């Protein structure tokens, strides 16, 4: 037995699988050859170490089982297509328990299908919300529907009249009309805030115009009176000059004001005597009247 032969039989020798004769030869070689003795020991120890591995398993990494399940359940047990098919039944609530488990597992593992299902759920909840909170229908839509349907069915004369008004009014509903309406509204608001109402405005205007007319008439009267008194004075002086030939004392123009005033008010008819004092209030008011009468009169004419 040489080293090559010993090494070729080494495994069988260690395992005890050799014939008794060969085993004895190997044992003899092991005793004489130091190198082969060392190798025998090393191999024996190595095999023992390897055998120990089979009994001492290393731990599988955390999450491996989950990964395997993900790979098998999403890839094999329930495909995304099958998941799609089950979706309808899921929302109808008619998936049986074992299928539901598979369905649920796929849902947990597959991000794509998770997004799909969540999206559908969201859409459904949005539909419910929309059902609960109705938005206002535009009035024009109602009109349009009525207009569209009225032509079809035999409408009553009231409806026909309504539709005629609607149809007539529609072209008026232009932006320009809207602006005009706004201006009108602004003006009426101004009038209302100033006079309370339109009728107040007219009565106010009437009163104003009446007082102006009265004042105007008064002024005309007073000026005509002044003209008359002036004429009387001139004629008096001419007469006195012509008939007396001397310097005459001035005509008693400045008669007691109280008397004149009392006469003026008492006698509405024109007075020959001048009333210088009456001119003052007339002129004071005159300014006011000169500016306003025209306006107020115009208003009144309106």
């Amino acid at each position: 037995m040489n080293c090559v032969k010993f090494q070729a039989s080494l495994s069988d020798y260690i395992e005890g699988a050799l014939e008794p004769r060969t085993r004895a030869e190997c044992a003899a070689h092991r005793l004489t050859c130091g190198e082969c003795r060392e190798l025998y020991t090393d191999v024996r120890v190595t095999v023992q170490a390897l055998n120990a591995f089979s009994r001492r398993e290393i731990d599988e990494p955390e999450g491996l089982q989950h990964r395997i399940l993900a790979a098998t359940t999403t890839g094999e047990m329930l495909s995304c297509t099958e998941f799609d098919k089950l979706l309808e039944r899921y929302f109808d609530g008619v998936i049986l328990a074992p299928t539901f488990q598979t369905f649920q597992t796929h849902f947990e593992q597959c991000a794509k299908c998770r997004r799909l299902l969540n999206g559908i759920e969201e859409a459904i909840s949005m539909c419910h919300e929309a059902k609960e909170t109705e938005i206002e229908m535009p009035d024009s839509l109602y009109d349009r529907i009525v207009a569209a349907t009225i032509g079809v069915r035999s409408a009553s004369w009231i409806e026909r009249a309504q539709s005629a008004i609607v149809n007539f009014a529609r072209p008026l509903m232009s932006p320009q009309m809207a602006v005009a309406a706004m201006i009108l509204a602004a003006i009426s608001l101004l009038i209302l805030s100033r006079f309370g109402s339109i009728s107040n405005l007219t009565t106010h205007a009437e009163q104003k115009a009446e007082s102006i007319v009265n004042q105007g008439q008064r002024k005309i009267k007073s000026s005509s009176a002044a003209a008359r008194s002036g004429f009387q004075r001139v004629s008096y002086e001419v007469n006195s000059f012509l008939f007396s030939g001397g310097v005459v004392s001035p005509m008693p123009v400045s008669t007691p004001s109280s008397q004149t005033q009392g006469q003026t008010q008492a006698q509405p008819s024109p007075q020959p005597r001048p009333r210088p004092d009456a001119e003052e209030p007339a002129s004071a008011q005159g300014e006011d009247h000169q500016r306003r009468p025209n306006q107020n009169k115009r208003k009144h004419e309106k």
Partner: protein
Amino acid sequence: MGANAALIKSDAELVRRCRAGDSAAWEQVVHEYSRRVYNLAYRFTSRHESAEDLTQEVFVRVYRSLDQYDSQAGDLANWLMRLARNLVIDDYRRRSRTPTDLGDDIGDHEYRLESYHDAPDRGVEQFERAKQVHAAIAKLQPDLRECVILRDIEELAYQEIVDILKIPIGTVKSRINRGRIELAKILRRMKVVETL
């Protein structure tokens, strides 16, 4: 997982319910066997990440093959682990032809060896040593490695290895022998073997 359902005892019932789409039953299968499959995958890949990917792949294939399980022919554990082993080895052989991803976990083994020597904790020691052995296994040439793993870690009979690898029993035996010697030499060079 599967807390809402009592554990299903019978393999036939378990598989039948898995095939009917009962996710709780399938969760039970994954819970029971994922650790074993992961360990198997790790022995062949020597990398946690690859082992995870491989384990996942195995379970996807297992799930697809559930209708091939015959409870009369044996229990689920044997059927599932045999399927897993075949898949892991297929994957291993595929990667062995393009051995670009081998050896990364071994690169830092020298550092680990040093730290192991003054590790005070026995548990840490064992853990470190296991890592050294895995590193050494990863250094074996692929055809030797698969035979050694199947024989000495998976503890399969020669005939089972023959069935899986589909090579003559003589080849299996000689590969196992060469693999063991090679591995022992690697471990000696790494100064791990003295501590085993």
